């Protein structure tokens, strides 16, 4: 009897630690498995400096969008407009540069535009009390429409060389888009871990009413979340036009799906209150490596979609399964 209860206890201990292991390292584990799989299937595709920097560069726009999206999901909301914000910000920044505004000033203004578009989202969410899904579904279409109108549905190109050169260059061998994405992720990690506002956002995600009774200004923080998401999307839009060398009115269409996927695969709870910026970055890399790997293995891009979709469902199911198993 006694030994049996002991055994039981040991069993449950093991399970708890496995659960913790999964929660801590699950997403990193998936990434490692993918890298190893690719290394076995096609060694040449991964063991080179250029391929690694290529994967990172390709993932940087999505990571930028995803770390912003992360906050919207953290308060049990969502931001469907990040792709459209990226496109509109990119377009307006491009117009400014082509119109003679110096690149650095244009970039600064571009980031402000992203923040303003996020502000509009937050304002509408707070004023109407509707779920962010509805509001950002609306602004997704509105921002895209404005992009088409301001561009006359035509691509804008002919940027100053300093801008395109700057974005596509490397510092100590690290591509600039990667440096930007990492910097943003580091700042946001600091924000979530070390600031009162960051903690408050987790509190709102965990229990909005309790947060309100604890004096946390829910609307103010909701506003902050959408502005952060807007800024990240704005930066992503600017990186995107730099990499492509042109601002296209249809740019970043559907990118919100990848951003949401990265956040979810990265361990962010869809019910709010749980998740880490680091996990989201890993989630973005997982999506990046799947796309890159399948291209390297010459799998048609339509199949890549299926794999990514499957992975979203699988990773959340697994997370759920492990979290609830006691």
């Amino acid at each position, binding site marked *: 009897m006694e030994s049996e209860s002991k055994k039981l206890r040991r069993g449950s201990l093991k399970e708890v630690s496995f659960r913790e292991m999964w929660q801590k390292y699950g997403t990193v584990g998936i990434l490692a498995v993918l890298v190893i799989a690719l290394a076995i299937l096609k060694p040449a595709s991964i063991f080179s400096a250029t391929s690694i920097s290529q994967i990172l560069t390709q993932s940087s726009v999505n990571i930028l969008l995803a770390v912003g999206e992360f906050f919207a999901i953290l308060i049990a909301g969502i931001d469907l407009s990040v792709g459209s914000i990226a496109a509109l910000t990119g377009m307006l920044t491009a117009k400014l540069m082509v119109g003679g505004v110096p690149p650095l000033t244009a970039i600064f203004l571009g980031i402000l535009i992203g923040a303003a578009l996020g502000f509009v989202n937050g304002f509408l969410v707070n004023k109407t009390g509707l779920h962010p899904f509805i509001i950002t579904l609306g602004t997704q279409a509105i921002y895209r429409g404005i992009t088409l109108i301001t561009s006359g549905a035509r691509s804008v190109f002919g940027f100053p060389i300093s801008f395109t050169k700057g974005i596509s260059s490397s510092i100590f061998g690290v591509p600039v888009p990667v440096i930007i994405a990492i910097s943003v992720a580091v700042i946001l990690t600091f924000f979530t871990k070390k600031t009162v*506002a960051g903690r408050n956002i987790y509190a709102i995600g965990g229990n909005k009413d309790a947060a309100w009774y604890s004096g946390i*200004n829910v609307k103010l923080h909701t506003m902050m979340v959408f502005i952060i998401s807007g800024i990240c999307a704005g930066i992503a839009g600017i990186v995107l036009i730099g990499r492509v060398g042109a601002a296209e009115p249809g740019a970043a269409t559907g990118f919100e799906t990848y951003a949401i996927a990265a956040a979810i695969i990265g361990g962010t709870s869809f019910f709010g209150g749980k998740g880490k910026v680091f996990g989201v970055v890993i989630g973005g890399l997982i999506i990046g490596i799947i796309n890159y790997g399948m291209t390297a293995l010459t799998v048609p891009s339509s199949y890549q979609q299926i794999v990514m979709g499957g992975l979203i469902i699988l990773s959340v199911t697994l997370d759920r399964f492990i979290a609830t198993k006691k």
Partner: protein
Amino acid sequence: MGSLVKMKNITKKFPGVTALDNISFDIEPGEVHVLLGENGAGKSTLMKILSGVYRPTSGKITVNEKEYDYLTPKDSYENGISIIYQELSVINELSIMENIFVGKIPVKTIMGIRVIDYPTMRQKASEALLKVGLIRDMNVFVENISISEKQQLEIAKALVSNAEIIVMDEPTTSLTISETEHLFKIIKQLKSEGKGIVYISHKMKEIKEIGDRVTVLKDGTYVGTRKVDEVEIDELVTMMVGRTIHGTYHNKNISDFKNEPVILEVKNISKKDGKVKNVSFKTHKGEILGFAGLVGSGRTELMDTIFGSGPKSYGEVFLNGRKLDIKNPYNSIKYGLAMVTENRRETGFMDNFDIKQNISVISNLKKSKAGGTIGLLDDKGEVEKAQIQVKDLRVKCTSIHQNITELSGGNQQKVILGKWMGVGTEFIIFDEPTKGIDVGSKSEIYELMRRLAEDGKGVIVVSSELPELLSVCDTICVFKDGKIIDTFDIKNVTEEKIVSASTGESGKVKEVN
């Protein structure tokens, strides 16, 4: 003739708590068996085992000569067990007739197609409604009928489903005297038809009037079963509370607070929706002010208004002589107000936070600027503060990094109290502070309240448990229909006085305790 139901040696354990410890209970045909006990004694848990909501950890249930380890909701229903909960489960959006047949609509087959059998429905419904004396158009939507009518409807519903055992959980809480009398008539009729009634209550007068036998539970244990005719009310009271008089926590030094400094003064508070009407009161140094009143009398709305968590309202609030301009909880917390809300899970704690993070919420907010948006976390300070509070309040936990959802109700409540301690709180509102909490934690919370009052903090306690108010408060305000209708000094108040004031039936209720 044997019992309709026999529950034998029922034990129910929840993580960390034994809710029921070896309880036996039976119901005979044609009797009203009263289940008596304070809040948290285990009455509802026992009935939830009977209805199949919970499975007992051990014990046997015999129904219709069949023995079960546990009942499923289906077993319970098929054996004619029907429970009428305190918070009635009728559906407001359906008609009276539809409510009676929810989940069991009679059907007939016409040309191979199954359709609703309206004639049968109408006939059965009118029979049942006549029996319970609910004479109304059956097509009226339930949202338009009164609470006592809803209760009659629930009984009719039970009758239609051939209930043999009807459990009524504190059915008279929100009924007037005449409505109660009518209910008793129905119960007597059901008795005469051989139905078994379980009547949960702690109103002594009712027990004498309607009960045949009475079983007393205390803190999840069985105290005894008596025949109502052969037992005195005093004995029942002793059985019910006897072993856990938690003592009193009144202010022993001051008997008249009128000359003490005023801590909080509320002047002419009103709410637009009329739930609070022109309320004024003062709390004094060293005084714990209690608010009694029925659920829905506007007590919680008043507290929400003072704390700034409710919608905008009119009136003035002064703390230590200073006029407060409160727009939201953030303002009031900055002024030194605090509120322990009625519902821990919904408005008390963040379930994604550990103990430390939950405790730190207020201190972080206090030292931050611009509406709580600007400020850095202080890991070391958080850990220190959490450790102090966990130790001071004797929170039982493995570490301050344990998730709050893993704690028992009492310890969760202590964590919530901990976040308001050591952060410059000047005035604290406790709304139903010991709901669903074990006796040990209860008395610790009462001690804390008294300590706060003695330290010169303002303390208000809102509670539906009169024994709680009577043992903790120095002054008790009775709230009814959005107003303070009476204020009692603890020296000359009884439970009966409060009840008659809060139901507005003074004179009709006899002193029985």
